[in-house]
């Protein structure tokens, strides 16, 4: 069971999704606009925001950016079109995953579960790679001694990659391990997440030291 904030302007879609999510034992708050949603979020400690991109007033991309700048709440976008422009824009704005409308409740449920999967802390020493410190027990990351706030999916991606430094993971492998997409996930989720992660932990994001691209295969951590 999770606390879900649903931001969706169409009243019937909003009611239907609320019904479906409540039917799956989630606690659901809903908002009809981005402004209302941001206001709700301040009071309602949501675990995940299900966010429509096409909203009156401030649009979904902007809402996404504002949520990201303030909190580490997970975000699942509702893309009306499934068009590439929407998806790419939403992922760049910081969304963790997306579903395409019309979405079957089982699919939305699976996505919500995946982004909310708790990363269990393991009692292991703090690992440091160059200026980067990864504390697997407290699930914190710091660079040059300063704490770096990472949203859940970025943290999970970093923990997964850094668990075996030097090992190359394909995008498909990362989608299955981190996003729990069973088959043929959208590799752009990985690429967008890597970009956001690099922006936070790399000193020069264009020349990454920690999360490196292996052309034609995927990504690996280090070697530093």
């Amino acid at each position, binding site marked *: 069971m999770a606390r879900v904030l649903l931001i969706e302007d169409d009243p019937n879609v909003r*009611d239907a999704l609320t019904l479906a999510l409540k*039917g799956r034992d989630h606690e659901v708050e809903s908002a009809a606009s981005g402004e209302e949603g941001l206001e709700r979020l301040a009071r309602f400690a949501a675990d995940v925001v299900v966010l429509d991109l096409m909203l009156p007033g401030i649009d979904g991309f902007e809402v996404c950016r504002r949520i990201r700048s303030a909190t580490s709440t997970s975000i699942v976008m509702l893309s009306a079109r499934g068009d590439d422009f929407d998806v790419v824009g939403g992922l760049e704005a910081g969304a963790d995953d997306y579903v395409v409308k019309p979405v079957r*409740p089982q699919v939305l449920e699976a996505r919500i579960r995946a982004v909310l999967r708790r990363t269990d802390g393991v009692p292991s020493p703090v690992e440091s790679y160059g200026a980067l410190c990864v504390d697997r027990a407290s699930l914190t990351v710091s660079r040059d001694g300063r704490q770096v706030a990472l949203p859940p999916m970025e943290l999970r991606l970093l923990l997964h990659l850094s668990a075996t430094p030097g090992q190359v993971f394909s995008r498909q492998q990362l989608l299955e391990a981190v996003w729990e997409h069973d*088959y*043929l996930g959208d590799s752009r989720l990985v690429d967008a997440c890597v970009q956001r992660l690099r922006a936070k932990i790399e000193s020069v994001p264009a020349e990454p030291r920690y999360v490196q691209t292996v052309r034609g295969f995927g990504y690996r951590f280090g070697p530093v």
Partner: protein
Amino acid sequence: MTWLRGLRARLVITFVLVGGLSAVGAAGLTYYTAQNNLLAGAQDRLLKDFRNRVLLLSRDVVLPASDGELALLAEDLEVGDRKVYVVRDGAIPSDARITAELRTSVLRRPELAWQRVTRDGVPYLVAGSRVMLLAGGTPSGITVYLVESLAQAASDEAAVLRAAQAAALPVVLLAVLAGLLAARGVLRPVADLDRAARRLGEGRLETRLPVRGGDELARLAGRFNETAAALERSVGELREMEARSRRFVADVSHELRTPLAAATAVTDVLQAGADRLDADAGTAARLVTAEVARLTKLVDDLMEISRFDAGAAVLNLNDVDVSAAVAACLRSRGWSAGVTTDLPPDIRVPLDPRRLDVIVANLVGNALRHGTPPVTVRVRATGQAVAIEVADHGPGLPADVLPHVFERFYKADAARARSEGSGLGLAIARENALLHGGDLTVASGPGAVFTLTLPRNRPAGDPSVRTTPPGNHP
């Protein structure tokens, strides 16, 4: 000799014939007239003069005359090149140009006789006359001969001939030139028309011709322009109508999404409650759920085909192991057991895995639904391409159906009108193949055989590189 049939050759030949005949005709006529005037005129003048002199002589002569006196008379009559002989009747002057024939006719007739002779290429007028005494017209017994060169008159005549000949050659050359000019004047608009018609045929409907002057060719160019403009207008209207209808489909699909989103969201609530409802309501709930799913699939497919039509489909290329991708596609749908596969390992091709999955799932799904088992999937690689062949072992497709299977909403069998597909599956599969620069073809061997070919030599780079096909937005 095809060039002889060309307009240029025909025009030049016509001009040369007309020009040449005119020149030769004019020269011939000139020559004929000149010949009469020059030579005959000179001859007439000479004979008239000769006759007068002989008349004067008949008055002056004193008979009987000695040989010496006759010689003196002759000398008096000689002027320039003119040779005069005054002899007694029947005597033969020592001049080869005075022929026996002339002498005979002189003696036989009372008046003057003449003859034209040519010696060493020079024409001469030779004349002779007996001198008659004034009183009674009795012969004096003396004959006068005259030998005069006609070289001057002949050379004048030759000059006229040369002039006529000399004039004819430039006339023929001028005719050729005029022919070429006329040909150019006609041929240039014809060549322009030829080029313009070809461009129009290639689909460049904005092609127009410059209209020069007001002759038949200019009118033809004008007519061509009107036709091209009308064609452009019609094609433009057709394209606009087609674009509008495609936009309409895209808009309708888009508008259907929101109500479908609401309906889809509550289907599992409905389904969960169906068991608690009475039989009819439960059946109704399950039916609505199933139909919403079908409608969703149809709208999804319409949206997808609209993206292809709008050129908005984007290829997300990854370096993919084709056999592994095909196996994963079958496995994820629980089809592995029902399909015989021949999947050689390590064929890596840059392609969009999601789109490959759509194609393979559609082909195998169709074969399983409509074909006869066993369904086989074979992957084969050549140097340039990789082919994925999906076949069943049924009777195959009728020949009249084969050309239409990739058409939208084409249903081979009316009884199959309510299959679970949207009717767009194969059309979308083929568009996906074309987007990769490949192709999807169908054949009816034993069973229906669909073959997807994808090129291997696409530039493989960072798998995150997204390639947009040329001419496509965004």
